């Protein structure tokens, strides 16, 4: 089963994302900041990482950078959940190695459509 790591410091967003993904049949592990996500990523394997950008402890961009350092996540699709205003941060995310982004606010359908784009 396709396994997704969902990272967001906001509990409501995380619940929404997790619920959506699980309803679509994905296996989901959640983390509430970059550091916890990195630990989770190291101790398991994921087919996709979905991360928020603004988070305490380690933000989404630093997380992407760290993940890309890991052999296991060199080519793994990483999507960032970002707000429509953060144009420059989208770029920062991409130069850190993110595959793409889902623009907030998004609805469950849009999220799933974007995910299907990258993992088919």
């Amino acid at each position, binding site marked *: 089963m396709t396994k997704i790591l969902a990272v967001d*410091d906001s509990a*409501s967003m995380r619940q929404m994302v997790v619920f*959506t993904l699980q309803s679509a049949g994905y296996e989901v592990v959640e983390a509430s900041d970059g550091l916890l996500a990195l630990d989770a990523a190291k101790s398991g394997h994921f087919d996709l990482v979905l991360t928020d950008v*603004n988070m305490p402890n380690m933000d989404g961009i630093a997380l992407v950078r760290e993940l890309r350092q890991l052999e296991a996540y060199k080519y793994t699709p990483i999507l960032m959940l970002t707000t*429509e*205003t953060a*144009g420059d941060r989208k770029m920062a995310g991409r130069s850190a*190695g993110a595959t793409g*982004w889902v623009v907030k606010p998004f609805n*469950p359908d849009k999220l799933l459509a974007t995910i299907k784009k990258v993992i088919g």
Partner: protein
Amino acid sequence: MSIDLSQFHAVFFEESFEGLDVMENALLELQPENPDSELINSIFRSAHSIKGGSGTFGFISISEFTHILETLLDKIREGEEQLDADSVELFLQSVDCMRTMLEALQAETEPDTTRADQLAIMFQSILTGASAAEAKGLDVPATGASPVIQESVLPGSDSIPDSLAGFHIEFTPEADMLKGGNDPVRMMRELATLGELTSTPDTGALPTLRDMQPDVVYLNWCMDLHGDMPLEDVQEVFEWVEGECDLSISRLGGSADSAPEVMPSNVAEAVDHAPDGTSTAATKTKADEQESAKPIPDAPKTASPAKPAPAPAARAGKAESSSIRVGIDKVDSLINLVGELVITQSMLGQMGGSGEVITDDHIGNLREGLVQLEQNTRELQDSVMRIRMLPISFAFNRFPRMVRDLSLQLGKKVRLELRGEQTELDKTVMEKINDPLVHLVRNAMDHGIESPNVRADQGKDETGTIVLNAFHQGGNIIIEMIDDGGGIDADKLVAKARANGIVGDNEQLNQEQKLDLLFAPGLSTVEQVSDLSGRGVGMDVVRRNIQELNGSVDIDTELGKGTTFRIRLPLTLAILDGQLVTVAGQTYIFPLMSISESLQIDEKLVNNVAGGGDVYNLRDEYIPILSLDSIFGLRTEPLSYDQSLLVVVEAEGMKVSVVVDDLMAQQQVVIKSLEDNYTRVPGVSGATILGDGTVAMILDVAGLIGLAGNQKTMAAGEIAGSAA
């Protein structure tokens, strides 16, 4: 798939309120002249989360407002804007404003955005550097347009026949594009969903197999996409690789000069900036699109109102159900204990079901099992209680803001110190202790702490200190409110009380009784009644609220040095420390907290008051004697006084004594609501089930006093007055 987003609303509100608290606290801690970047970051993060969540869950008014806030915060974070005391104040007001709006949304009503609109204008004027008046004319319409609505306009252009033939796409990825996780195959697959795709790879750059690196892209593609699809959709496919490839998109069968205008960057960037409301390009794009959409008038009309519609529809869930966030460790310990309980149960079950002759061994094992069961039960009880426990910081956190605002208002300098913020207490107790605490702190600010010059004259630090301290003591939580102000003049209190007729002219009071007057209804020692407190309504309410929680409050004060209010509360409302008593064969329970003493009756000290009941002369204090027999109609012929005991109880500053047949054990009892299970009974605050399965009533001391009627107490007052 349709997912009901309203199921996440409760969590969203909860975390948004928490986020606002974080913002507020960080703002209070911020020193504008030397801002701590981590504090600004945490303010930004909170605002950002609220914006993201409110946008996602359809609370557009919140997300619009937070957006402006966030824009300024971002500029401050990047050092492009300076933070000053005024903007801190503005942010604080915004926090209040958002809290009010969120509360309205939580109650499923439409929030009033008047205040938000005013604040938005002020933020805009800071952002544009223009005067407020200018900002008003210029930017308000722009901020009014929601990011979501603008987005929704774009799909309106879907129906514009951008191209009937399709597009020609030349796509040359950079060699290391795969490293970002972007696979050209994915993009082609996606293009194929838009129309009929024919692609021709250029293999010219392909090395020999030996030299080939698996993670390098050597190919480029020329593609023709046939069909009727909007340009945006095609651009969106390549959105993530912009800058990592050479890309040209031109219309199939179109003239060659149309190619440059459809380069991806133009529209995409305009869309990016549109929500800022500052980009003229964005508005232009929008206007253009609406204009070009005219031939199909239905499209934009249906597009714009369609978006806000889901919001009210999504609010199917009830806002009422309040929730509690529990640490995972507490839940784990609960699960662990339930596991142990199951083990004990199966152990006992095995013994019971063995069907053999019962030996002493069996009895021994059974006893052991029961001891274990008892322990499990007690631990389980503790554990479940802990779930309702929250750190008192939830109650304390509002005070920094309050103290700041009040000290500005009063022209006083006050430093607030919070101690023991992690001390836990029951959620309900916390909610109910909030108002009394607020009142005490207000009082301390208003009457306790002196103005800076007075303090300086007395050789004190100009800045006064108020300490809120919480700690556990036995089964109670103690909350102290300590100020280093002027203290309470007990004699002034007495003089005032005499003037108001609360205390008789010749009545002598000890220090404790004098200070107790502070809680008497209708008493205020300050000549000038201020806005904040001093109307004499309050301290009596403070004490009543605390007593309703089965708690008590003490005062320590020293003139010129300061005052300490010490509130003692039970950790939970679900369990009560009770004194069991029997009357006419029935068991009743007094809250232990309300009992001041129990004694054997000396009949010589009982006086009968004409037209009233009996009073007892307790060390020259006359206390009404209440009979449960007559209140509850138990016996017409109660036991005589020499066969009975007297329990002296205190409530609402009044002492009464209750005749009982016998005192039994003191024990913790679980309170069951009578109102929920039966109906409200005067004089009874609840019931509990005792070890032997019988139901015992828990007495409501304040209610009993009321039941006994004013006659007796007034009679007692007369005696007390004449005796003194």
